[in-house]
């Protein structure tokens, strides 16, 4: 067992990046996630592992620094919160289009606009449906604990490199700011340039006589070729959907009703399940861990067994659309949500369930 530490979610992300052997972090401060860059600055990662840390002049610049370094096969990440992630979307689209691996953390706050600095889950659409322009998807991981904030850095990087696709950790202000026990992993070495050249032959590391020049681009002026490329992306997303769906089931086996919730909401709902069971209501919770790919198939299976499904989100109802698509009207699907930075209580979720179904 590794060392146990008490950490904020944002700090866990930063420590995990160093320990996972990341090559760089480029970011711009924004509440409620500035602890990520502050923690890194205090840790002096250049001293610890040689990891580069840079506070950029904007979110635009930081995501494009990520693009440049990722294009050279480096393991790099950035983080922000909702308004900042909107600014990063241009770069994320280019990164997806150039098929580069990277990790982006969004510690979501309520919107639209400048909104609030309180926790929210209102960026689900933006994260799972593309976010920027063009046909693409991110791999989206939704941690529900500080430990998962830590663990998903490694997982996110692994998936990003496996599929040459940007990965996102979709968190929120509550998980970013709260502290929990975290088991810290071993320090992994950063990859050497030789290892990068062998493992990622596409990377711009300098043209050597043994290969053609490498070009990192998302531009293709020939429509026929562009469509072929789009088809390749579609095929990649299909493979991801086949292989990378992750979810957790809590008391689902005998459930009459099912809650679907991720991140902070799932923690609330776990308590709702406990309360409902005490009252004799057979309630279960399906927690998607990957939001893209979404556990549609598993939900479709439950559609045959349960009497009703309620999606609980800190939004006006975004994930509920994916739940509905998954169950294809075979069972009643409802949404319960709070917005504006309000976190629902376990009691009100139970109340809502009773109102909608019982």
């Amino acid at each position, binding site marked *: 067992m590794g060392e*146990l530490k*008490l950490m904020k979610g944002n700090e866990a992300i930063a420590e995990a990046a160093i320990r996972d052997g990341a090559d760089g972090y480029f970011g711009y401060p924004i509440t409620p996630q500035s602890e990520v860059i502050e923690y890194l600055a205090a840790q002096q990662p250049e001293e610890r592992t040689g990891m580069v840390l840079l506070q950029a002049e904007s979110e635009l610049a930081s995501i494009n620094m990520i693009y440049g370094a990722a294009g050279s096969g480096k393991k790099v990440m950035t983080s922000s919160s909702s308004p900042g992630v909107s600014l990063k979307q241009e770069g994320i689209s280019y990164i997806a289009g150039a098929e580069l691996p990277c990790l982006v953390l969004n510690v979501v706050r309520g919107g639209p606009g400048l909104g609030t600095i*309180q*926790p929210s889950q209102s960026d689900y659409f933006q994260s799972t449906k593309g976010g920027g322009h063009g046909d693409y998807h991110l791999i989206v991981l939704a941690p529900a604990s500080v430990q998962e904030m830590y663990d998903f850095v490694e997982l996110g990087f692994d998936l990003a490199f496996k599929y040459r696709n940007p990965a996102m950790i979709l968190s929120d*202000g*509550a998980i970013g*700011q*709260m*502290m*929990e*026990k975290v088991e810290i992993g071993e320090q992994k070495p950063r990859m050497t340039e030789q290892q990068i050249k062998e493992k990622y032959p596409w990377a711009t590391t300098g043209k050597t006589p043994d290969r053609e020049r490498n070009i990192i681009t998302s531009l293709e002026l020939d429509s026929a070729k562009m469509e072929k490329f789009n088809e390749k992306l579609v095929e990649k997303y299909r493979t991801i959907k086949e292989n990378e769906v992750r979810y957790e089931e809590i008391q689902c086996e005998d459930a009459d009703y099912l809650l679907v919730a991720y991140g*902070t909401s799932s*923690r*609330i709902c*776990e*308590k709702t*399940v*406990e309360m409902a069971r005490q009252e004799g209501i057979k309630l279960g919770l399906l927690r998607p861990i990957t939001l893209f790919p979404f556990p549609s198939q598993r939900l479709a299976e439950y559609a045959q067994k349960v009497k009703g499904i309620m999606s609980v989100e800190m939004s006006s109802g975004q994930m509920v659309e994916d739940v509905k698509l998954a169950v294809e009207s075979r069972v009643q699907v409802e949404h319960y949500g709070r917005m504006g*930075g309000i*976190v629902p*209580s*376990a*009691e009100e979720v139970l109340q809502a369930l009773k109102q909608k179904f019982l």
Partner: protein
Amino acid sequence: MSEEIIIAGFGGQGVLSMGKILCYAGIVQGKEVTWMPSYGPEMRGGTANVSVIISDERISSPIISEFDTAIILNQQSMDKFENSVKPGGYLIYDGNGITRHPERTDINVYRVDAAAEAAQMETTKTFNMIVLGGLLQVKPIVEMDKAIEGLKKSLPERYHHLIPVNEKAIHRGTQIIQEVRKAKVEA
């Protein structure tokens, strides 16, 4: 065992760090912990609060509205959280600056005048440790030596020379906490 605590007072009273020490002590004792600082407009009024859960089992929601124990260190927090204590639960408060003392009779009420004591000890910064000592005297959520270890873990090493004075404050807290009234359990 699961203990749900709110610690509420002014910013600068060491509310958040007291919660952190409790959590570290819990970790040392092999428990699950969560520490959730206050979210909401009340933070802007200069008040600070943190809810801490220490449990033998996996903790579901870190965001809770009812508490087994409330530690209340100013009047605003008294007004806000007195009614959030579960019946039969504990309310521990510092009388300094309190104009309306707790009124509920279905909870156990204790008073620890830590501010006055810290001033007398001429170590005003150990105020929160006196409160912590009081809490552990009334509710031994974590063992005393684990609390000291938690203190060590949560303090950066450059402050480790302050551990003895904080340890002393914790012990002082165990001595000065007073019972105001026991909960009346309705038959």
